[in-house]
């Protein structure tokens, strides 16, 4: 494999890994803090992508779609937590699984009613539609680099939020010890709502920014969801850092897997998970108890 192709695959791996990280970080925080297993998380990614399609049709550009779409996603997440998810906290995991599965069905059908079942494309913004040449024969789309860059910026902002703000401190405390946060009493409802809205916004943003590259189609959320579960299992529930490491690892395994073993690439990620499970059943970044 020559250097140019290798470089392209590395860039693809990073892009995929970062997108996964955005979606998975919300999932792991919701798990870790609220203790809720949310199967509908992939639907937020799908809804983000469809929102990008609809809004860029209305406003004439992806950029405006994102500017409008992200606040909409935050609002949606806030309201959804308030009217639905807040009732899930007291229920056992089995009920949460089925309730959020029901939610997936509802989201898919509402989407089908509103926008139909066709596959759609979203146009790359004209300013970013060019390609960078790599060596003599290959080139790499600028937009893909923009995706990665955007993800890096959002990830950085997330880490700053978590490590430098009071809100972030509460979130991190809650992710490692939910009971402690409960005993802090005040603002707990608000914290949960914020975390949930944040998770929804991250997933939706990932869907929006990736829409031009991956196209918009029914069921796109389900695929992402299950891979995100793998990210969370490998990285450890509640650990955003773990999610980053795991997502990038999966990005590389999947991308290079498609190159070398195209028939089995779908399986490789799960093999990675199996290996991690044998070694550390609680995830990479969790301390195993006695």
């Amino acid at each position: 494999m020559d250097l140019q192709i290798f470089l392209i695959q590395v860039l693809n791996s990073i892009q995929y890994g970062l997108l996964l990280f955005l979606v998975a970080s919300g999932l792991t925080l919701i798990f870790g803090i609220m203790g809720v297993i949310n199967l509908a998380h992939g639907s937020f990614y799908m809804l983000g992508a469809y929102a990008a399609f609809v809004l860029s049709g209305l406003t004439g550009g992806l950029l405006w779609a994102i500017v409008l779409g992200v606040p909409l996603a935050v609002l949606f997440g806030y309201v959804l937590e308030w009217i639905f998810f807040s009732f899930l906290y007291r229920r056992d995991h089995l009920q949460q699984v089925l309730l959020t599965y029901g939610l997936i069905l509802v989201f898919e059908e509402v989407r089908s009613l509103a926008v139909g079942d066709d596959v759609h494309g979203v146009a790359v913004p004209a300013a970013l539609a060019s390609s960078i040449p790599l060596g003599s024969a290959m080139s790499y789309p600028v937009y893909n680099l923009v995706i990665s860059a955007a993800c890096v910026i959002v990830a950085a902002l997330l880490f700053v939020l978590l490590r430098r703000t009071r809100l972030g401190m509460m979130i991190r405390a809650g992710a490692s010890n939910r009971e402690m946060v409960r005993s802090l009493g005040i603002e707990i409802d608000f914290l949960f709502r914020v975390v949930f809205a944040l998770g929804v916004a991250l997933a939706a943003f990932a869907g929006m920014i990736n829409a031009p590259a991956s196209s918009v189609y029914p069921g796109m959320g389900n695929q992402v969801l299950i891979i995100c579960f793998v990210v969370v299992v490998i990285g450890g529930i509640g650990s955003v850092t773990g999610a980053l490491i795991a997502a990038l690892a999966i990005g590389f395994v999947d991308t290079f897997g498609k190159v070398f073993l195209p028939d089995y690439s779908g399986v490789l990620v799960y093999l990675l998970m199996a290996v991690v499970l044998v070694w550390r059943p609680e995830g990479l970044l969790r301390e195993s108890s006695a």
Partner: protein
Amino acid sequence: MSIARPILWSVALLALAALPFVAGKFYIDLIAKIMIMAIFAMSLDLLVGVTGLVSLGHAAFFGLASYMLVLAAPDQYTAVSLWTSLPLAMAASALLALVIGALVLRTRGVYFIMVTLAFSQMVYFVFHDTKIAGGSDGTYIYVKPNASIGAWSPFNLGDNAHFYYAMLALLALTFLFLRMLLASRFGRALRGIKSNEQRMRALGFNTYAYKLAAFTIAGAIAGLAGYFAAVQFGFVNPEMLSWHQSANVLLMVILGGMGNLVGAVVGAFALVLAQDLFSSLTKHWLLLMGGFVIAVVVLLPNGLTGAGQTWRHWRERTRSG
């Protein structure tokens, strides 16, 4: 109370046995399909309702057995022997359950749910992405398995009344087997694990081994159901292994009521009939389905067979509240 239940069962059994005489082909096939799903649901109830293992990947064992029917046949037009291909299919499912179980049972709680889902996705991808048995398109099965032993042909799976009675017999046998299992010391230990696994370990039970055994047995029974689902449907494709299938059967168990086996059967009937009803009402029946799922979980936490219990709880809470 204790006389009512055997009477209820006898009536239900008689009704099921009498069905082929009064109903048309459509209903005979539908009820046969429901009975197959009831076997599938009972196997999951063993895991979820009895042992407390919430598996979101049970369809993997169901679907693998379906594929084994195809893989056991030299080509699509030759009938295999029921007596060799069925044990083979069940053994394959049991083996897969043993291997996956050995890995996933190292995890607990939410992790366990996620890894069962992930591993069944892996199996799905093996059949979806590769060329095995037609890949994502699936394969047709043009001839039913042959039930003859030498020159004697006890029944013909191609005849839909024969098939129906065979499924009824299997449902009854599976039910009795699982009842016996639950009454045994092994079964009591499984219930103990669901109640308080930490205490079971402190008492000296090797809970990992018990869980693995339950997982494997459940996988084998799911394989039984999957094999006959393929026989009846005449077609296998990766969707039989999908997580929607896993969620579907989990819903049956919840809908009917966990832990008592009868609930799984009731749930299978209720869910398939509900799906039939919804899909006849509108193209967007999944919306109704989603609402239905949510309503069931919220309103009937103990399922249909536990409705009396839910009602009593609710009465006590509103009286004291």
